[in-house]
């Protein structure tokens, strides 16, 4: 133990309330500026409307901020919650925490979900949710000790800079000989020096005798954490069992959990083999279908993609039963042991890399023209240790590499770095620079939206080309799927509340490969149901992977195979068994609709959340350049002549690019109309008064907000 001096600046003892039917009905509220610690009750009406998890976070954050609150204002709050089923060890994927804050990238509310043990330990310590506002004057640790029933705010010096060492040392420091009892939330120097900081949520891997972590990556919540000078939030709790939530019907929980857990054990080895190779199987599949982002989303495949897919990582992963929460039989949280970085502070040392998952492989690999699994591992390791979101880092680096290759920026701007695609050493150098806030990395760390402004205004680059190729929407960098050929997934990204992240809807295969939704109305229906059901997992403290990554053998013979209705029914049964509130597949959707619409209104409150904010860079819709068009010429020519009945004889490629663009942009606008209508929103994308009344979220301040926007 090498930590320096510490001073407890606030301490609070409390009577712990055990979870009852999945809830403690209390939340922990902290203001670091004062500092103050208090325990508050969740009103019954709020519990009914917001359910838990992301719903509770949004309600707590809504009440902490006003329309003018900026991400680095003390009022901005980091809210973390589990959910009523969170912490059940028997049911696969029941350990998620959901985090929200006002984002440094988007300026609006962001949500991110993450594994690790923190959310369940927080709940069993007596709190359904945690809200932290204010700022500290120096490095601070928040320690929530559910066993001793005490919360401390501790100023601490001599802490390691990076999350890799910090989570391990703090586990050691607080565990009293039982490291399994500790979960640490921490960021790192990259979070402090960029806008794309992530949070690492830890758990102790007793089989390997080491601390592991998962990331709440999207939207820069780690940056907010670092800005508050919080170095870590630590939770301490002891044994967890299926009884810990005191479910309404224990036997029913056990039964449904057994069904789902056993099905996964039986079918995963036949299907995607998540327990052996995680999500790395997606790399070759996406590549085969021209969906693997390559060189800043210009192309969807590359002949070298096989070097960074399933076959590479199945040899590199350390075999083991790797769940990020107890008892998850999907067990997809893999890692690589004894990896030796060749750059940075850990150069030459053996480290454990948690990951990579598909998104990191595509973002820090193919999208940068890098097809070397060891470079991807090193970027994965340092991004986590520095507290950087691998998706935003990958997409931001891909953007600067394309800008460099097109001459929009030069070595004069990059500090002499050659940022051609495939330059793995300079890609790593940029990650180190981003973490320290130095050199060109300080600009890259601002994210794609701000880089576009800087490159145009300061470096004189072509603003319209930057807008077309800069892969962000709402200020958030795209996650790693090609959407050019799937209008439904363009909606999945462009209409997502927080920005282009696939956790709301992943419709590419249904739309592009299977053509299950040829009409706008069918696409709009899918862009209603899937975001709603996926939202529901975040309300309940659940991981969505067990829902549709492993499916029943007869699923393809059901009327709606994409929805995996057998599992949806199991989730309804699970919710009923824990909370005692009867639920059906339909009521799960209504629960989500309330929270989903409330989050849309939250965007509106913060100055966003209308049609203009649901826009996409053209690269997400079609070929920006002649080179892109000609790389898939047959496909695009066929669409122009077939679908759009355009005469292309004698026309050059630049003309065809322009006409195709006109058609595709018009289609996206029609899709918006159809989705807004289906969701009960105005043509400007705002929930109508009838919708908010139907959902019971017609709070006085919501009605005032709608009136201010002329919505009746």
């Amino acid at each position, binding site marked *: 133990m090498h930590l320096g001096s510490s001073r407890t600046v606030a301490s609070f003892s409390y009577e712990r309330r055990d979870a009852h039917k999945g809830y403690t009905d209390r939340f922990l509220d902290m203001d670091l500026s004062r500092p103050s610690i208090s325990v508050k009750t969740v009103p019954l009406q709020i519990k009914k409307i917001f359910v838990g998890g992301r719903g509770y976070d949004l309600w707590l954050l809504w009440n902490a901020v006003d329309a003018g609150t900026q991400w680095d204002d003390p009022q901005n709050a980091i809210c973390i919650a589990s959910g009523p089923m969170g912490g059940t060890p028997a049911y696969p994927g029941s350990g998620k925490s959901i985090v929200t804050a006002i984002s440094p990238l988007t300026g609006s509310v962001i949500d991110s979900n993450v594994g690790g043990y923190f959310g369940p330990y927080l709940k069993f310590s007596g709190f359904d949710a945690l809200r932290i506002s204010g700022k500290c004057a120096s490095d601070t640790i928040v320690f929530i000790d559910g066993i001793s029933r005490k919360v401390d705010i501790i100023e601490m010096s001599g802490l390691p800079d990076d999350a890799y060492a910090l989570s391990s040392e703090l586990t050691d420091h607080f565990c009293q000989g039982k490291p399994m009892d500790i979960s640490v939330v921490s960021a790192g120097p990259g979070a402090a020096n960029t806008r794309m900081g992530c949070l690492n949520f830890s758990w102790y891997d007793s089989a390997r005798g080491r601390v592991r972590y998962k990331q709440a990556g999207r939207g820069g919540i780690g940056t907010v954490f670092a800005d508050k000078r919080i170095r870590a939030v630590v939770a301490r709790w002891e044994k967890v069992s299926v009884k810990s939530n005191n479910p309404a019907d224990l036997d029913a929980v056990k039964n449904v959990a057994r069904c789902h857990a056993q099905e996964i054990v039986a079918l995963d080895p*036949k*299907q995607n083999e998540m327990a052996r190779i995680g999500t790395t199987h997606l790399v070759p599949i996406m590549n085969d279908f021209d969906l693997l982002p390559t060189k800043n989303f210009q192309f969807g495949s590359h002949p070298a993609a096989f070097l960074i897919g399933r076959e590479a990582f199945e040899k590199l992963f350390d075999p083991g039963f790797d769940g990020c929460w107890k008892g998850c039989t999907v067990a997809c949280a893999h890692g690589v042991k004894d990896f030796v970085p060749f750059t940075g502070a850990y150069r030459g040392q053996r480290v454990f890399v948690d990951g990579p998952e*598909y998104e990191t492989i595509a973002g820090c690999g193919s999208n940068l023209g890098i097809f070397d699994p060891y470079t991807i591992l090193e970027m994965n390791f340092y991004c986590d240790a520095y507290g950087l979101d691998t998706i935003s880092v990958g997409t931001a680096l891909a953007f600067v590499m394309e800008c460099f290759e097109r001459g929009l920026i030069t070595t004069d701007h990059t500090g002499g770095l050659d940022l051609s695609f495939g330059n793995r050493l300079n890609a790593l150098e940029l990650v180190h620079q981003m973490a320290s806030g130095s050199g060109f990395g300080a600009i890259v760390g601002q994210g794609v939206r701000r880089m576009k402004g800087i490159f145009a205004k300061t470096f004189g680059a072509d603003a319209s080309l930057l807008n077309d190729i800069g892969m962000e929407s709402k200020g958030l960098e795209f996650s790693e799927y090609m959407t050019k050929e799937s209008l439904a997934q363009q909606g999945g990204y462009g209409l997502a509340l927080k920005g282009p992240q*696939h956790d709301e809807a992943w419709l590419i295969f249904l739309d592009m490969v*299977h053509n299950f939704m040829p009409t706008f109305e069918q696409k709009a229906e899918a862009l209603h149901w899937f975001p709603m059901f996926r939202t529901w997992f975040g309300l309940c403290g659940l991981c969505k992977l067990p829902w*549709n*990554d492993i*499916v029943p*053998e007869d699923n393809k013979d059901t009327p709606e195979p*994409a929805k995996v209705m057998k599992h949806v029914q199991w989730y309804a049964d699970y919710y009923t068994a824990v909370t005692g509130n009867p639920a059906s597949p339909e009521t799960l959707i209504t629960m989500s609709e309330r929270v989903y619409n409330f989050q849309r209104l939250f965007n509106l409150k913060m100055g966003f959340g209308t049609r203009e904010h649901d826009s996409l860079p053209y690269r997400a819709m079609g070929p920006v350049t002649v080179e892109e068009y000609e790389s898939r010429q047959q496909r695009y020519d066929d669409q122009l002549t077939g679908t759009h009945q355009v005469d292309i004889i004698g026309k050059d490629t630049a003309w065809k690019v322009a006409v195709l663009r006109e058609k595709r942009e018009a289609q996206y606008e029609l899709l918006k109309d159809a989705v807004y209508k289906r969701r009960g929103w105005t043509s400007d994308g705002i929930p109508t008064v009838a919708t908010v009344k139907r959902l019971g979220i017609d709070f006085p301040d919501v009605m005032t907000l709608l009136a201010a926007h002329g919505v009746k």
Partner: protein
Amino acid sequence: MVFIDDKPYAWQADMTLADLLARLPDGDIYAVVKFDGKLISRPFFASTMVPDGARIVPVPMIAGG
């Protein structure tokens, strides 16, 4: 004999994966299959020969990462 999801089907010489799946009532819904443990995607069904004794398991592809 070849096996799809452990069910036996007659094997023919020069048979491709596309030929085999075309004989199934729902063969057109498969986008990815595991072919003797290796992933094969639809764009490669027509160029993949099926040897006698091959084991094929359709892989559901409805979820992203």
